[in-house]
């Protein structure tokens, strides 16, 4: 479709405006906001879609505000082979006219005009394409959906060079719909097919059920026949069993008789046995009496012999006891002696120990007394001596000052050297001085001095002022020293030092004494020591007086200790001897007691044995009086004979009973009785079963199972056929769909190449030679590559997406348009997001596309599309 021109009258704010378009190329319509640019695109849409009588909201909106007039639109279009002028007025005096100029002239008005225009457009314009190629102002900047048939057709032409039928999409939709009748979108059978399968299963189960019932009837009938045959056999069996039972009953009676006889003979036999046993036991008792007499006599003899043998044993025990008692007495005496001796030795040893102790105590006492004396002396000295170390120090210091002052006075004083040229006698400062010839003497004049050679000369020497000061200092120092010495009670420094030394010696002596006292006194005082010495001396003297003379007192402590130790050892030996003897005496005494008891017991036994012998003799005599031995033997023989007779009779009776085989006979009788009972029960059971079966057959035979089965089978077969048909249809639909889908996808992929190539051709004008795009099977742009970097379309900026959208539309229109078909690309205020550089290049791309298709650009920014080289520019007035 190409738009040649459009005229708007009373359309929104526009009273009358006509715009002509470049039919092959770009038309740019510029104008400020609200001057009606968008109205141009809108009007084109309205006139093609709505009848003049339409009350559609979109139509109502375009009526001019506040004016009672109808909006008018007139367009001149070329589409396919048609070229026509089409006009409409809405709202007021609606009107439609269509004037077709080519291919042949047609003039129509009203509804006819509208219908004819629609027919032409339907024939020549792909409405989806028309929608896809428009970018309306303010609409979503989405990428276009090019799943439109005219593009596909054009691309198919471009890709395969073949021609496409008109309505393949329609066929494809039908194929999809047919598949959906049988399959879910994910390829599972639809629910109704499963239901049919369930119904079929149910029908099959029903058939099986009825077949089973019929089989039951057949088996019941067979069982009836079998049981009728069984009946005869069972009756025979029962009769035979009853006959057996009777015959065995006879045998049982005979057996009972035999068993009675046996019982009688058994009783007789038992009586004979008892009698024999009685006599037999009497004979046995007689023998026992004889034997017990024998044994009683033997026992007496034996005991008497034993008594004689045991006499010497007793005598030996008495002797041993006496000896042991004597030995014990001797041991006790020895022990006592040893004990006395040991006591004496111990006391001697203690005596010697006390001697040593008193000597030591006396020494300690002496030392303590000495030390106390020394201590008293030292303390007296210390009391007198006043120069201690501290005072000595001060005296020393004062002394040093004096020496210093002297030296200092001496150096400051004038020195008077007198050399005797002859022996001289003179006075110096009142002191007489003799000076032999040739010697000299030096005088120090601290203050003033007078040398008088009596009679010869008097020389007064006066020292200078400094020397006099020094002299005064010296005097002061000497005075302090003197004072200190007086304090210490000494004459001078040397004496002070001696006094101090003596004092420290006294201190040392005091300390030594104190230590000695402490060491020797220890815990005792001097008095206590003295007391102890006195106490010990008393005891020593007393012991010496008391002690017997023999044995002699040991000479010293060592000997005493040895003697005490020897005495102790002897005592221990004696003690052990004594214990041993006491043990021996006890044992001997015990043995004697035992021997005496033995003797007594034996005597008692002998008496008992003699009594027993007497009793045995009496019992035997009594028994023989009762029944002499010969009588007893005869009775026993006759009882045994009677017993043998009954035993033989009993044996015969037992054999007869065994002959009759009572064990087996009992089993046979029981068995025959059980067999008869069982045969009767089986017969009864058989009859009962027959009745039950016949009753059941009667009931079931009439329930029409045969028809039920036929019906169920028919139903089942019908369902099977239906299912088979449905399944084969489902398979066919699936196969058809899959085959078409595969081929369709392949052809889609073929479409891609030319479309992609066209987008890239325009795109390289904008983005440069590295621009590439990737399309999916539905011809949608999915990825863009630039400078080797590939991005998903969603990742691109709004501007880049918008540019791609425009490029895709231009590419589409360029592909579709050469055959006079297609539709114009309408860009209403697009590319608002593009920077000036891109915008310029987009302009070039639009211009390039404009050579192949019609492009209409609406913009309120006049400069925006300045770079569209070959554009026709229409500027709308305000």
């Amino acid at each position: 479709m190409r738009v040649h021109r459009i005229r708007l009258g009373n359309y929104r704010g526009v009273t009358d405006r006509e715009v002509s378009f470049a039919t092959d190329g770009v038309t740019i319509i510029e104008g400020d906001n609200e001057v009606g640019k968008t109205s141009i695109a809108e009007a084109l849409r309205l006139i093609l879609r709505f009848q003049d009588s339409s009350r559609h909201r979109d139509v109502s909106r375009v009526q001019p505000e506040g004016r009672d007039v109808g909006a008018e639109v007139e367009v001149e279009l070329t589409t396919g082979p048609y070229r026509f002028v089409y006009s409409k007025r809405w709202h007021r005096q609606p009107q439609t006219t269509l004037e077709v100029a080519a291919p042949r002239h047609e003039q129509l008005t009203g509804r006819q005009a509208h219908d004819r225009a629609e027919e032409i457009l339907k024939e020549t314009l792909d409405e989806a394409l028309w929608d896809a190629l428009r970018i309306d102002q303010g609409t979503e900047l989405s990428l276009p959906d090019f799943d439109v048939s005219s593009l596909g057709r054009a691309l198919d032409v471009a890709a395969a060079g073949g021609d496409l039928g008109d309505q393949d999409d329609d066929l494809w939709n039908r194929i999809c719909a047919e598949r959906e009748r049988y399959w879910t979108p994910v390829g599972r059978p639809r629910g109704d097919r499963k239901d049919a399968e369930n119904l079929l299963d149910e029908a099959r189960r029903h058939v099986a059920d009825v077949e089973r019932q019929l089989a039951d009837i057949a088996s019941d009938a067979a069982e009836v026949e079998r049981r009728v045959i069984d009946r005869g056999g069972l009756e025979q069996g029962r009769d035979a069993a009853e006959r057996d039972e009777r015959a065995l009953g006879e045998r049982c009676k005979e057996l009972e008789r035999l068993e009675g006889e046996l019982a009688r003979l058994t009783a007789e036999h038992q009586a004979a046995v008892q009698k024999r046993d009685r006599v037999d036991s009497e004979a046995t008792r007689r023998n026992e009496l004889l034997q017990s007499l024998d044994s009683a006599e033997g026992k007496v003899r034996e005991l008497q012999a034993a008594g004689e043998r045991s006499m010497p044993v007793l005598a030996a025990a008495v002797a041993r006891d006496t000896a042991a008692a004597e030995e014990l007495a001797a041991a006790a005496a020895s022990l006592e002696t040893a004990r006395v001796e040991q006591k004496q030795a111990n006391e001697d040893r203690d005596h010697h120990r006390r001697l040593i102790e008193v000597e030591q105590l006396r020494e300690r006492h002496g030392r303590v007394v000495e030390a106390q004396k020394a201590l008293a002396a030292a303390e007296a000295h210390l009391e007198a001596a006043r120069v201690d170390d501290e005072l000595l120090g001060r005296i020393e210091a004062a002394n040093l000052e004096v020496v210093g002052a002297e030296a200092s006075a001496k150096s400051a004083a004038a020195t008077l050297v007198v050399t005797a040229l002859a022996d001289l006698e003179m006075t110096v400062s009142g002191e007489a001085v003799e000076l032999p010839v040739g010697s000299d003497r030096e005088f120090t004049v601290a203050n003033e001095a007078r040398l008088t050679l009596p009679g010869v000369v008097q020389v007064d020497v006066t020292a200078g002022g400094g020397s006099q000061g020094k002299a005064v200092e010296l005097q002061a120092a000497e005075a302090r020293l003197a004072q200190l010495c007086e304090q210490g009670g000494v004459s001078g420094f040397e004496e002070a030092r001696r006094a101090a030394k003596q004092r420290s010696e006294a201190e040392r002596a005091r300390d030594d004494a104190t230590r000695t006292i402490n060491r020797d006194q220890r815990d005792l005082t001097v008095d206590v020591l003295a007391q102890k010495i006195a106490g010990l001396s008393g005891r020593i003297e007393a012991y010496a007086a008391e002690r017997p003379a023999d044995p002699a007192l040991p000479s010293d402590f060592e000997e005493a200790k040895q003697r005490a130790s020897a005495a102790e050892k002897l005592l221990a030996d004696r003690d052990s001897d004594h214990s041993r003897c006491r043990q021996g005496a006890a044992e001997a005494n015990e043995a004697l007691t035992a021997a005496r008891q033995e003797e007594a017991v034996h005597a008692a036994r002998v008496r008992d044995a003699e009594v027993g012998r007497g009793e045995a003799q009496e019992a035997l005599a009594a028994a023989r009086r009762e029944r002499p031995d010969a009588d007893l033997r005869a009775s026993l023989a006759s009882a045994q004979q009677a017993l043998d007779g009954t035993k033989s009779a009993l044996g015969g009776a037992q054999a007869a009973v065994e002959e009759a085989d009572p064990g087996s006979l009992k089993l046979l009788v029981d068995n025959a009785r059980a067999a008869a009972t069982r045969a009767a029960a089986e017969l009864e059971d058989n009859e009962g079963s027959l009745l039950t079966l016949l009753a059941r057959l009667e009931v079931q035979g009439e329930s029409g199972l045969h028809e039920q089965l036929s019906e169920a089978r028919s139903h089942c077969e019908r369902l099977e056929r239906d299912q088979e048909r449905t399944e084969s249809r489902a398979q066919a639909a699936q196969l058809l769909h899959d085959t078409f889908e595969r081929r369709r996808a392949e052809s889609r992929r073929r479409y891609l190449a030319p479309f992609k190539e066209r987008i890239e051709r325009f795109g390289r004008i904008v983005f440069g030679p590295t621009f590439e795009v990737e399309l999916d099977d539905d011809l949608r742009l999915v990825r863009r590559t630039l400078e080797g970097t590939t991005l998903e379309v969603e990742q691109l900026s709004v501007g880049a997406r918008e540019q791609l959208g425009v490029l895709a539309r231009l590419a589409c229109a360029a592909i579709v348009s050469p055959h006079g078909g297609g539709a114009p690309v309408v860009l209403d205020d697009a590319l608002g997001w593009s920077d000036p550089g891109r915008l310029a290049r987009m302009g070039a791309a639009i211009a390039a596309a404009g050579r192949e298709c019609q492009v209409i650009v609406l913009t309120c920014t006049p400069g925006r599309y300045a770079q569209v080289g070959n554009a026709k520019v229409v500027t709308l007035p305000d």
Partner: protein
Amino acid sequence: MVKFIHTADWQLGMTRHFLAGEAQARFDAARLDAVRRIGALAASDGCAFVVVCGDVFESNQVGRQVVVRALDAMAATPEVTFYLLPGNHDPLDPSTVYRSPTFTQHRPDNVVVLESSDPVEAVPGVELVPAPWLSKRPLIDLVAEACEGLEPAEAIRIVVGHGALDAMSPDRDNPALIGLERLEASLEVGVIHFVALGDRHSTTEVGRSERVWYAGAPEATDYDEADPGNVVVVELDGAGVRPRVEAIGKWRFLSRDWELTGDRDIERLAEWLEGLADKECAIVKLALVGQLSLAQKARLDDLLAHHADLLAALETWQRRSDLAVVPDESDIDDLGLSGFAREALGDLRDLARSGDQAVAARDALGLLYRLAEARR
């Protein structure tokens, strides 16, 4: 001289799965009508009685409705006695229909069940020698056993039996086969005079004596029956036998093989179907083989759908049918497909030639044809 009707194999209670509800009802009614017609024929033709040689009922387990209607149909001609012989479908076993309460309560006087092989005097001077089936699988020749020990007599003896004759059966080991030789020997010496048999649904005369017959079913029951739909009216006396076959039945089972390779064949099939008489009582089974184009198959489907409505039943014999539907060039041109649709069509044609998916592919082509046609 005695005149009677020999019939058998009524198979009352039989259902046929290929008959939809309405057709099955008419089929049932037709077979009851046949019973009435037999009674009427006997009455009008002066027959003394009717012998029904086994398989009166399809099964011992038929419903009460079948039983009472059968008895009622026979009661319509009280002057005609029906002698019913238990056959292999309705043997006189413990589950037999003949001793069911329904049967015994509603049995009219003119219906007699031949319950044992004891001879029955049907009319004075005429003895029936029945060989009833007492179980589904007898282990002896029942007819031979029934005839055992018969001596020549004054009376005319009619053997009433059911089952396959040894002379006609391929199953030599079946112990229940009826020996033809002995029967013919007995016929020759005049111990027996006619052998009325059931089991075979086609009316058939057997052997050289003219006296051994299968009456056949009075109404057809299946496709494999050569000559069903008859009864035999027998006249018998010392001089000889005069059997006459009377057509009774109205229903037909028709089974045909058709080779279809083009429009001509479809036209011939259409003509044949068109020419069938009494279509509502015709049951047709077609085995279709050959190869058709999409358009021809569509035409065939229309034709079959039309006649399925007219006929009592029209079946396609799946087991013996092999009809390939392959689109030819004209089909494809008709469809006007292009582009990928044409390529997909090519794929399907390749698949349709052979292989696992050939059947599905043919169906898919048919479907494509239908969908493409529909959009025009």
